[in-house]
């Protein structure tokens, strides 16, 4: 036996990039605008899909791929709001990746907007491009006002940051201005929208950005 050395350049993210590219191309061909929805468990990601579907269903057909460790709770919730949905259970994996949802994406050629609801956490989903047009991060005041600076990458790379449950801020001792300041320090371009989804606060600001984002993305898609 003798020793050999192989000098290589193999990116561990290359496989994901390849599938993300294929997902993106499929969505472009079919004129589907995709949003990668990220945030902690309970932050309000599923409710954002429900509320958006209720308010835009006369104009846009909404689809959703729902990533969760187990169960079909989110599937049951969003389908009641007319959303075409597909549940994907990730088991031990703490994020969606482009390969994992590759076949699921192909079932959504007939929608205008596809939400890819990621597994609930602010850490793992950030490094895995799914082929989306936009990254939306939902964070709630109940996660503490230091949550944004504790998770800088996901907020730095977001296209929109939604701070949810603002009506509960005083009750949980959260200073929303600190969250706004931290978001701005990390990300100068993303809108930071204060919301209370359950009570329809801030929804109009979200919809304004959402419709604009859909329009912008549609311009470079074929349909």
């Amino acid at each position, binding site marked *: 036996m003798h020793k050999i050395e192989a000098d290589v350049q193999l990116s561990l993210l290359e496989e994901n990039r390849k599938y993300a590219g294929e997902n993106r191309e499929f969505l472009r061909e079919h004129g589907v605008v995709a949003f990668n929805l990220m945030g902690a468990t309970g932050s309000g990601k599923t409710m954002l899909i429900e509320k958006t579907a209720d308010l835009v269903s006369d104009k846009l057909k909404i689809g959703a791929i729902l990533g969760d460790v187990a169960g079909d709770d989110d599937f049951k919730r969003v389908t009641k709001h007319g959303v075409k949905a597909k549940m994907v259970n990730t088991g031990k994996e703490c994020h969606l990746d482009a390969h994992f949802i590759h076949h699921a994406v192909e079932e959504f050629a007939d929608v205008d907007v596809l939400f890819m609801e990621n597994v609930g956490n602010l850490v793992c989903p950030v490094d895995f491009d799914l082929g989306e047009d936009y990254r939306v991060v939902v964070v709630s005041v109940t996660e503490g006002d230091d949550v944004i600076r504790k998770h*800088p990458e996901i907020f730095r790379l977001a296209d929109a940051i939604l701070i949810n449950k603002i009506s509960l801020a005083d009750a949980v001792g959260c200073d929303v201005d600190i969250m706004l300041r931290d978001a701005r320090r990390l*990300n100068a371009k993303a809108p930071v929208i204060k919301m209370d989804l359950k009570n329809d606060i801030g929804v109009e600001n979200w919809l304004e950005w959402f419709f604009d984002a859909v329009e912008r993305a549609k311009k470079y898609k074929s349909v």
Partner: protein
Amino acid sequence: MSFAQSLLENVLRVAEEKGAKKVKRVVVEIGTLLMLNPEQLTFCYEVVSKGTIAENSELNIVEIKPKIRCSVCGKEFDAPFAICDCGGVVTVEGGKDAVIRKIEMEV
């Protein structure tokens, strides 16, 4: 764990291509903005490589820092920051990839 799994799969693929009987050492560059903990990656790699020809191989992790710089005044930062004191937009380059650079094997 998914990075460790992908690392092992790539290492084993190269080892197979080269007809290796044993993997001795792997050098991997990890961008610091991936925020992977080197100790955890090493531990996970040990776990997933058990029972393969890469079992007990040494894992050398080289941390790669991003270039974080103000696009107007050129001031450099240690951590990502959106806007510089001068009002310029701060750009972040690199630090987001994980790349295997070297694999030592016995054939």
